[in-house]
C-alpha cells in the first residue's frame, strides 16, 4: 500500500495524477450522462403503475447511491490520511465532502419530488429518506468543522477524524432508523417494487449510475487540484505552473 501511495505523497505528483485522470472521468461523465438521460427520460417505457413520474429514478437512484459511495470514499481517504499521515489524502477528504453533500441534497430533493405524486406528501418519514437526511447532516458537520479551523492542517485532520467516526456510525444510524420506521409506521409506504426491474429500464439506470459516479469523480478531481494549488501556492512548482499557463 505504502509503496504504491508513496510517490503521490508529493503534492506535485498528486497534481499530475489528477490531471491525467481528469479527462477520462470527464469523457465518461459526458457520454454516459447524455446517453443515459436521453434513453431514460425519452425512450425507456413508462411504468404501468406510476406512468412517467417514475422517470425521476434516473436521477434519484444514482444520486442516492453516490451519496453513500462518496461518504465511503471520503472515509477511506480519511483513514489513509490519518494512518499514513498523507496530507494529500486530507485534501481529498475535503475535496469530496461538498460534492457528497450536494449529491445527498439532490437525492433528498428528487426523493421529495417523487414522494409528492407517490405518497401525496413532499416529506414522509420514510426510513431511507430519514437516513439520507442524517447523512446530509454528517456531511455538513465535516464541512463546518473544516471551515471552523483557521489552521488548515489541523482542520484537515479534524475533518478526517469526524469522517471516520461518521462512517462507523452510519450503519448503526441506518439500521436504527430502518428499525424505528418499521416500528412506527410500517405499512404506510408501499415499496417501489419487489419484482426485478425490466431490462429496458435497468440499462439506462445503470448508465446513469456510472455517469453520476464519473461526475462525482470529475468534480472531486477538479476540487482536489484546487486544494493542492491553494495549499502549495508558495512552492516553486506552483509558481512554475502558473508562469507557464
Amino acid at each position: 500500500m505504502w509503496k504504491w501511495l508513496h510517490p503521490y505523497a508529493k503534492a506535485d505528483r498528486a497534481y499530475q495524477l489528477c490531471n491525467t485522470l481528469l479527462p477520462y472521468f470527464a469523457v465518461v461523465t459526458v457520454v454516459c450522462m447524455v446517453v443515459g438521460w436521453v434513453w431514460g427520460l425519452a425512450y425507456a417505457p413508462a411504468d404501468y403503475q406510476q406512468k412517467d413520474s417514475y422517470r425521476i429514478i434516473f436521477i434519484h437512484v444514482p444520486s442516492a447511491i453516490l451519496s453513500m459511495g462518496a461518504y465511503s470514499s471520503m472515509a477511506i481517504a480519511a483513514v489513509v490520511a490519518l494512518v499514513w499521515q498523507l496530507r494529500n489524502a486530507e485534501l481529498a477528504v475535503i475535496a469530496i465532502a461538498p460534492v457528497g453533500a450536494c449529491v445527498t441534497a439532490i437525492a433528498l430533493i428528487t426523493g421529495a419530488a417523487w414522494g409528492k405524486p407517490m405518497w401525496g406528501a413532499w416529506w414522509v418519514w420514510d426510513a431511507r429518506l430519514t437516513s439520507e437526511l442524517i447523512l446530509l447532516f454528517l456531511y455538513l458537520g465535516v464541512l463546518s468543522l473544516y471551515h471552523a479551523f483557521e489552521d488548515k492542517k489541523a482542520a484537515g485532520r479534524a475533518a478526517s477524524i469526524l469522517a471516520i467516526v461518521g462512517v462507523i456510525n452510519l450503519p448503526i444510524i441506518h439500521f436504527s432508523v430502518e428499525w424505528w420506521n418499521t416500528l412506527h409506521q410500517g405499512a404506510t409506504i408501499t415499496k417501489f417494487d419487489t419484482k426485478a426491474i425490466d431490462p429496458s429500464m435497468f440499462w439506462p439506470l445503470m448508465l446513469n449510475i456510472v455517469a453520476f459516479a464519473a461526475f462525482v469523480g470529475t468534480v472531486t478531481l477538479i476540487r482536489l487540484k484546487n486544494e493542492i494549488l491553494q495549499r502549495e501556492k508558495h512552492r516553486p512548482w506552483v509558481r512554475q505552473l502558473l508562469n507557464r499557463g
Partner: protein
Amino acid sequence: MQRQHSYLQLFSAVCKKDLQLAFRQRAEIVNPLLFFLIVITLFPLAIGPEPGLLARMAPGIIWVAALLSTMLGLDKIFRDDFHDGSLEQLIASSYPLPLTVLAKVLAHWMITGLPLVLLTPVFALLLNLDSQALVATVITLLLGTPLLSFIGAIGAGLTVGLQKGGILMSLLVLPLYIPVLIFATSAIDTSTMSLDYSGQLAILGAMLVVAIISAPIAISSALKVSVS
C-alpha cells in the same frame, strides 16, 4: 524520583481532579439539571396538560431533554484543561492518552449523567409515567447517558481549540445521538405496553461497549489535533 507505573493511579487521579473541580463549582452540576427540569416543564405548557397525552410523549420528552442537557456540560469537559495547558501535560505524560480520556469521560458522566438518572423519579411524576415505564426510563438512562458522554466527548475534543466551538459541537454530535434516542425511547414505549424490551437494552449495551473501546481512541486523536 522513581516512577511506579500504575494505570489505576492515573485513572483515579484524573477522575478525582475533575470531580473535585465540579464540586467546588457546584453550579456546574446543578445548572444542567435545572435546565433539564425547565425543558420538561415547558412541554406540558406547550402541548397541554392531559395526563394520557403526557404519558404517551414522556419517553420522547425525557430523552430529548437529556440529550440537550448533556450537551450543556460537554463543552466544559476539555475546555479548562485546554486553556491552562493541562491537556499538554496529559498528552506528554508517559501514560496512554486514551486511558486518561476514559477517566475524564467517566468523571463527566458522574457529574452530568448520573444525577439525571437519580432524579428521574421526579420527572416521571411530572409527566405521569407509571412505575413500569419509570423502571425502563431509569435503565435506559443508565445505559444511554454514558453513551452520550462518550459520543459527545468526541465532538468536544474536536472543537475544544475553536473560539466558538459550542454550537458547532452540537451540530456534530446530535446526529450521532440518533440511534441512542431511537432505542432508548422505543424501550420505554415497549415497557408501557407491558412487553419485553430486553432487545433494545441489549442493543444499547452493545453500543456502550463499542463506545468504551473505540471512543477514547477517537477522542485522543481529536485532542491531539486540537492541541497542535
